């Protein structure tokens, strides 16, 4: 194939793809014994089940060497689309054509095992991602250098800090050489320098003529990395065009939903450990919070599978997807580490200092020891902070002028003057 038409050669063609799930099947047996009992009791009964189309009639093409962003709210169908492209599950209708070797990074460190050493995990994870052992050996030093974990190669990864863990996991994935790379929100983890490194690596991949599909909530990353973006909403592909327009479209959608979606409820049929509901209880109604007032964040956690180091935390994220605050419950004695059940976890912040602007919540539910991420949700519970009741002379409060406000006082003394200095300041 010549170089000229390589630029326009297709990499992915998605044609009318849909994926159906059955949910809320209260009557559906989960054990063989129930199944048999049911068949005996109601031999002709048909299962009652509710249908959910996680993705419906989705079509698009991606040319080789393209870097395409995919954005959308929780439950818009992004994960389903990725799972289909990554061949984890099969479409219910339509067809997908892929031209070339596909590599999918749906989470960082798939298959990493806490008891195995860094070195062993590199091989384990690498082969799971589709590399040959020979390839891994050839690139081993490069991978380790990228991850900056040389000294800990023979330590079980359970002793790694989460930063080291993520770096090593991403390093393996980054050295995979598929013709089509599918990346999900892996950049939500790791420090900002590492995130930059990851973004750089993806750009490199795309420049090398390979195709990248990139799903993220991080608008900053999507806009620096991609020129074209798909926006999904409720299982449909509602926008396909330039990234700038795509992000604008997404923001409009967000704003339209903001009034109705101040509280979050998990979609019916959600399985495994998950956040069943989330609420931001602001000082005023309608998701408005007056600066400096106490705020409460409530989460209903559904924990069917107990994990010994189950951890929950969340970030308050501003309109540019920057985290302004991180709150956590990593307590060793937390009861949800011992007993399965439904819990309500409430966080109280006596003085909420985030500056004027609009915010959402991003949750993380994971198991520290095994590095299992059960669930991570973004764009929950949108609310706005106002400076109502707090006067500032001459300058109006502006959203975005700072991330948060400090209490401060100032002293003004005139040089060479014996007058007493003046005092003032700000106390929330």
């Amino acid at each position: 194939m010549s170089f000229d038409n390589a630029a326009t050669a297709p990499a992915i063609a998605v044609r009318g793809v849909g994926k159906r799930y059955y949910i809320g099947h209260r009557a559906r047996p989960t054990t063989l014994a129930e199944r048999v009992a049911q068949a005996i009791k109601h031999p002709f009964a048909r299962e009652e089940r509710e249908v959910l189309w996680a993705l419906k009639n989705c079509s698009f093409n991606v040319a080789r060497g393209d870097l395409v962003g995919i954005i959308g709210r929780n439950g818009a169908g992004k994960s389903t689309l990725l799972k289909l492209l990554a061949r984890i599950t099969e479409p219910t209708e339509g067809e997908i054509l892929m031209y070339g070797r596909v590599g999918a990074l749906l989470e960082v460190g798939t298959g990493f095992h806490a008891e195995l050493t860094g070195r062993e995990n590199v091989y384990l994870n690498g082969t799971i991602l589709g590399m040959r052992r020979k390839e891994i050996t050839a690139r081993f030093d490069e991978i380790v250098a990228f991850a900056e974990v040389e000294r800990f190669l023979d330590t079980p990864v359970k002793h790694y800090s989460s930063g080291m863990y993520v770096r090593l996991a991403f390093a393996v994935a980054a050295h995979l050489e598929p013709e089509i790379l599918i990346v999900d929100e892996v950049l939500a983890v790791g420090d900002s320098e590492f995130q930059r490194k990851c973004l750089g690596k993806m750009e490199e991949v795309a420049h090398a003529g390979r195709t990248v599909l990139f799903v993220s909530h991080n608008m900053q990353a999507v806009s620096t990395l991609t020129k074209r973006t798909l926006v999904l909403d409720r299982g449909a592909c509602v926008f396909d065009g330039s990234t700038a327009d795509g992000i604008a479209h997404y923001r409009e959608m967000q704003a339209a939903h903001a009034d109705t979606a101040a509280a979050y409820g998990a979609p019916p049929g959600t399985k495994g450990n998950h956040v069943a509901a989330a609420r931001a209880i602001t000082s005023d109604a309608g998701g408005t919070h007056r600066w400096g007032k106490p705020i409460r964040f409530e989460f209903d956690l559904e924990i069917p599978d107990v994990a010994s180091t189950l951890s929950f935390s969340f970030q308050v994220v501003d309109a540019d997807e920057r985290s302004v605050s991180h709150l956590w419950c990593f307590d060793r004695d937390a009861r949800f580490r011992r007993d399965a059940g439904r819990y309500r976890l409430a966080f109280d912040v006596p003085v909420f200092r985030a500056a004027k602007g609009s915010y959402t919540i991003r949750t993380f539910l994971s198991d520290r020891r095994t590095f299992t991420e059960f669930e991570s949700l973004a764009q929950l519970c949108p609310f706005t902070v106002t400076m109502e009741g707090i006067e500032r002379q001459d300058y109006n409060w502006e959203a975005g002028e700072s991330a948060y406000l400090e209490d401060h006082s100032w002293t003004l003394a005139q040089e060479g003057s014996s007058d007493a200095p003046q005092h003032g300041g700000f106390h929330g």
Partner: protein
Amino acid sequence: MTSVAPLRLAPGHRNVGRELAETWQARDLLYTFADRDLRLRYRQTALGVVWVVLQPLIAAGIFTFVFGTVAHMSSEGKPYMLFTFAALTGWNLFSGILTRTAGCLVGNAHLVSRIFFPRLILPLSVMPAAMVDFIVSLGMFAALLMIYHVAPTLALLTLPFWMLLLAAGAFGTGLVAASLMVQYRDVQFVLPVATQLVLYASPVAYAASRVPEKWHTLYFLNPLVAAIEGLRWSLLGTEAPSIGSVAYSSAVAIVAVIFGVIVFRRMERGFADVI
């Protein structure tokens, strides 16, 4: 660059040739999984290797006491300990592969739901670990032979056949159990009970010849009878199973593998949605 036909993903669409090629290309993954399982087993338990040796020794000791010493059953002129240990090597190979194959999907649920690889690699990767156990156990048996001053016979040359027979039967059954277990978790509780039953319905603790004549038809319906008797014959020179029973046993094993692979492949598309 590549100008091969594109990969087509569509409902119900299968490309057997491509899948076979992919499975072959993923052979390193098979090695890695097997390596992981072996390492973890021997790293997490201090008794690792010792356990593999001890477990059949204890079991053989109990059978020897109950069936040999207490019940005075015949062991066809061989020391009872050797008699049961030989059969147990085969039984453990069978039950080891069956149990591990059956649990391989549920046990690796986090992988199955998050990444694609030829699914058949998972059950295949339990083989090496089971073989290692089998070889350790054979070594132990060789030591026992020396202790009891018993020499093996030429029948030893047929050992690979019995091994293959047991492994194939276990693999096929295990594939069906693995596929079922994804949907119905109680299969994992039923399975140990069922294997325990089959253990007593097989000539492990006693000789098949001790089973009363009138029960023979029913008894020999269990395909494991010929396989275990055959393995014991090859290791110890006891009475050989009849050609007919071996043929029956082989046919069942082949059918089990074919049926197992078909069921597994039919169900594998839905694994990630259910698991």
